[in-house]
């Protein structure tokens, strides 16, 4: 998708054949082997060994610890985790929106702007200059924040907020064109043009969140980051916004990072899901596999924390205890004090994120390491119906 497809007055009705339709059960996200280490191909974002601290020196608290995530074009990556798990910190750091005392202490975040005749144009967001970032933000990467009321300027009419964005990034547009473009964007999210003359407080929560989405799409970004976009909304409004979002994605083909604590929502809409706990990735899998066959006890506990809508009512236990304080993390695996399957080893050594061979999914748990000698509990060895691989075997890849 290029800029002109979203240009003024050219509302694109046809779908580009290059954009694959939304397919929640697809296995397209299984990591492809990259022949050249530096070439990214279809990969739009590649984050390696990424760590973020809050504060310096002795008092530093590690909020994100050595995280690897990657995302292909037009794909949806879901990041699940509770408050304090580092999911928002991770994406704010990647987009360099993180403010002091947040510091990126290691890692790279390579963003692929696409290729031309000179080859690929790849930027490491961690080392990019302020000037480079300014040209990237909003036009290539845009962010939709959780609280639309505090993200929109309360004393400026909605139309003027569109105007500001377009004036800053699209210098060649006339005032009339900007207004037309703003109206077109509102049309994308099913809002009337007259909303442009309203102030944010005159709109409902769902309408405000729609405006945030329209604003995020104003410059046709390649990557849209959604930080809990529907958490403050009712389920019905959430359902409407999600379905609109996916309609827009199949039309314009942007990739999406979707952050939420609602794992059941993510399993419906993401292609691949990473689960974070206490700043680290504990599991990565395709959405279906994660739901049908979780491999980490925390993922299992999270999935069991949502009361079902069908069947007999049985007492669910959820996860005992509370999320850890990042300043005083438990030794070994951060999850072991709450883990029903914890072993002696879990309190001593931190399990690495290892790949389960042949499945493209990874998990950080000693139970899944063959040489650890522990039997895998039956709850954590279910086989996913949609992607059963009979010879699933675990080998340690890297730490």
């Amino acid at each position, binding site marked *: 998708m290029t800029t002109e497809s979203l240009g003024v007055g050219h509302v694109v009705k046809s779908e580009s054949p290059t954009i694959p339709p939304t397919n929640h059960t697809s296995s397209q996200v299984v990591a492809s082997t990259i022949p050249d280490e530096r070439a990214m191909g279809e990969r739009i974002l590649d984050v390696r060994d990424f760590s973020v601290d809050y504060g310096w020196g002795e008092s530093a608290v590690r909020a994100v610890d050595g995280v690897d995530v990657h995302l292909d074009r037009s794909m949806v990556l879901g990041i699940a985790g*509770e*408050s304090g798990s580092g999911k928002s910190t991770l994406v704010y750091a990647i987009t360099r929106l993180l403010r002091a005392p947040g510091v990126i202490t290691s890692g790279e975040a390579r963003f692929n702007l696409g290729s031309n005749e000179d080859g690929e144009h790849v930027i490491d967001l961690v080392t990019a200059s302020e000037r480079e970032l300014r040209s990237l933000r909003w036009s290539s990467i845009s962010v939709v924040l959780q609280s639309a009321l505090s993200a929109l300027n309360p004393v400026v009419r909605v139309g003027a907020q569109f105007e500001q964005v377009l004036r800053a990034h699209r210098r060649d547009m006339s005032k009339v064109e900007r207004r037309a473009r703003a109206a077109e964007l509102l049309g994308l999210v099913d809002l009337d043009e007259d909303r442009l003359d309203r102030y944010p407080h005159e709109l409902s929560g769902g309408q405000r969140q729609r405006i945030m989405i329209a604003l995020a799409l104003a410059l046709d970004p390649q990557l849209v980051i959604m930080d809990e976009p529907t958490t403050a909304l009712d389920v*019905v409004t959430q359902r409407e916004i999600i379905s609109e979002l996916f309609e827009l994605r199949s039309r314009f083909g942007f990739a999406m990072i979707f952050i939420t604590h*609602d794992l059941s929502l993510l*399993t*419906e809409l993401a292609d691949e899901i990473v689960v974070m706990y206490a700043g680290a990735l504990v599991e990565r899998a395709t959405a279906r596999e994660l739901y049908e066959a979780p491999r980490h006890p925390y993922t299992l506990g999270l999935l069991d924390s949502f009361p079902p809508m069908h069947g007999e009512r049985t007492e669910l236990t*959820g996860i005992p205890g509370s999320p850890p304080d990042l300043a005083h993390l438990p030794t070994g695996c951060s999850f072991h004090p709450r883990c029903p399957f914890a072993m002696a080893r879990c309190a001593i050594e931190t399990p690495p994120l290892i790949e389960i061979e042949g499945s493209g999914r990874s998990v950080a748990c000693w139970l899944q390491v063959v040489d650890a000698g522990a039997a895998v509990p039956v709850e954590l060895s279910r086989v996913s119906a949609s992607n059963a691989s009979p010879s699933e075997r675990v080998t340690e890849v890297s730490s």
Partner: protein
Amino acid sequence: MTDEMTTSVQLAARNLTRHFSVRTPGRLFNAKRVVRAVDDISLDLVTGEVVAVVGESGSGKSVLARMLARIVTPTSGDLVLQGTPIAIKSKRTLDYASQVQLVLQDPFASMNPVHRMSHNLLRPLLIHGASKSDAPAMAEAALRRVSLEPPSRFLESYPHELSGGQLQRVSIARALCIQPKVLLADEPISMLDVSVRLGVLNLLRGLCDNERLAILYITHDIASARYIADSMIVMYAGQVVEQSRGTSLVDEPTHPYTQLLIASVPDPSDPTRDTPPTGERAQATIAEKGCRFSPRCPHVMDRCREEEPPAFIVGEDHSSKCWLYADHETAVEVALPTRRKEGETATT
């Protein structure tokens, strides 16, 4: 008061209504408009049962809870506490507060941040007549009831030192320490982390089963309501649109709004499911005349725009306020699917 009373309806509400008048700037002479926040709601809170009220924001469910706690004065309607009619227009008495307690949504906002938990817990005890020497022991007992061990540690801590789940337990303990009979829980888990929500739900269910509290559980999360409720009520725009004993309302929803609500809940166990039609997009206009859901309803008929439907009986202890069931019997005025003992004040 007889023994029979203590095992039956603790708090009964009849035809509770609250209207707010608002001025719309810009209209001619700032014309007054009435918002019918809660309209003609009757319910019984019974010993040892959880009544769940489900509704989206703006449906009036919190106003309902505040009326039951007598923080908001109803425009009309009656409240009967343990068989005694309450003068609803008068000020809330200390005795009423000692029987009916409210737990709010945000535990961080409902605790005084500059005082230790001991202050937050001892104050209600002293106000409600505990002696200074007994109060600390009662506060510790209340913390044990909500599984906060050891209580002494929690009494010494400040709100910012506790997690959301722990704080919400303390606010439940604070409501329980004066031994109320009725607990009104207004969205008690919506601000909590997913992994600790079930703990609080199980705690509420346990208090209900073991200590015979009457609980009103208000939520927008229909799955959690299904998990703990003995009877369920769905509210839309200030009215009860569907109610049932048990979970039949979720298992066999009859009202189009309930159907929409249930279809909107993410359900990963069914990946092939289509997105439901959500009715008129988001504008969520509430009809002034006829059925309030009619502008969004996929099954809307002419009659719906003209006449407001009564509650029709659609199953055992299950009623639905929708013209689709016009061939069913209408529910009697006090159509509450809760157990009622003989000789009790049902209506006033």
